[in-house]
């Protein structure tokens, strides 16, 4: 078929991730509005703050494609810069999620408080775990680039990292709509 085996395997992995997040989103939707005690979503979800997190993740996706384009044309100075920017934007997102979770805990919403808490933390926490893996992966690539071990010949490695990162972004696009905006 003329397709790269690593890329094919990674697309298959992303396909399986669709099913994982699909089942978590379905669980969230099924239990939506069925909490018997508060806090309820409309009482604690902070839309302006989450909008900023969404913007941050969208910009990290832009930085990721710019990193890949730079590595493909052999401009490693730009490649290193955009890889670092992507990882830092990922860290900003994770910081925001940590702040949000801390706030919710302070407001009385724990993992076992109600159905909203259980489904919300499992869904967004699983996504956050994926972002964490992505940030570690990006920083590893950046360190390799700084050491001069990443060049145009390793463009496929950067492309696969990008596929993972963009997938994390598209999952957040769905979560932002389903969890935060459709209350």
């Amino acid at each position, binding site marked *: 078929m003329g397709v790269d085996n690593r890329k094919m395997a990674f697309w298959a992995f992303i396909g399986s991730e669709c099913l994982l997040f699909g089942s978590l989103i379905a669980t969230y939707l099924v239990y939506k509005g069925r909490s018997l005690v508060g806090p309820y979503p409309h009482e604690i979800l902070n839309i302006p703050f989450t909008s900023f997190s969404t913007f941050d993740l969208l910009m990290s996706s832009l930085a990721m494609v710019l990193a890949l384009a730079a590595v*493909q044309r052999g401009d490693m100075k730009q490649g290193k810069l955009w890889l670092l920017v992507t990882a830092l934007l990922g860290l900003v997102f994770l910081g925001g999620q940590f702040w949000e979770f801390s706030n919710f805990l302070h407001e009385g919403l724990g993992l076992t408080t109600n159905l909203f808490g259980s489904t919300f933390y499992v869904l967004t926490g699983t996504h956050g775990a994926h972002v964490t893996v992505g940030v570690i992966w990006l920083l590893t690539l950046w360190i390799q680039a700084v050491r001069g071990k990443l060049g145009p*010949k390793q463009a496929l490695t950067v492309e696969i990292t990008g596929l993972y990162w963009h997938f994390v972004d598209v999952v957040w696009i769905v979560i932002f709509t389903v969890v935060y905006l459709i209350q």
Partner: protein
Amino acid sequence: MSEHGAGAAGAAGAAGAAHATTGTYLRIAAILVMITLIEVGVFYVPAFQSVLVPLLLVLSAVKFTLVVMFYMHLKFDNRFFAFLFGGPLLLALVVVVSLLLIFYGAVRLRTGM
């Protein structure tokens, strides 16, 4: 990676670069930000409350498609990758809709509403 694999990757990368330029990536980013602003905007406007859910779902689907097509290069890549991604995505959608129908069907049967 094998020599063949590296060559194929390089060719794919070159093809991708030929189709999607930095300008394209920046335009896509601007569109994504604008759609996000529209999403948040309609959330706060009472006039949109009656059509809020379908409107937000459509806007979200547009953002999803733009990222997958342009940033993940599915528009320019081998169609087999689209099959590998689209198949499970479709299945996931079927799972979500089926679970909702089963759950709300059961609730209706139990409550008689």
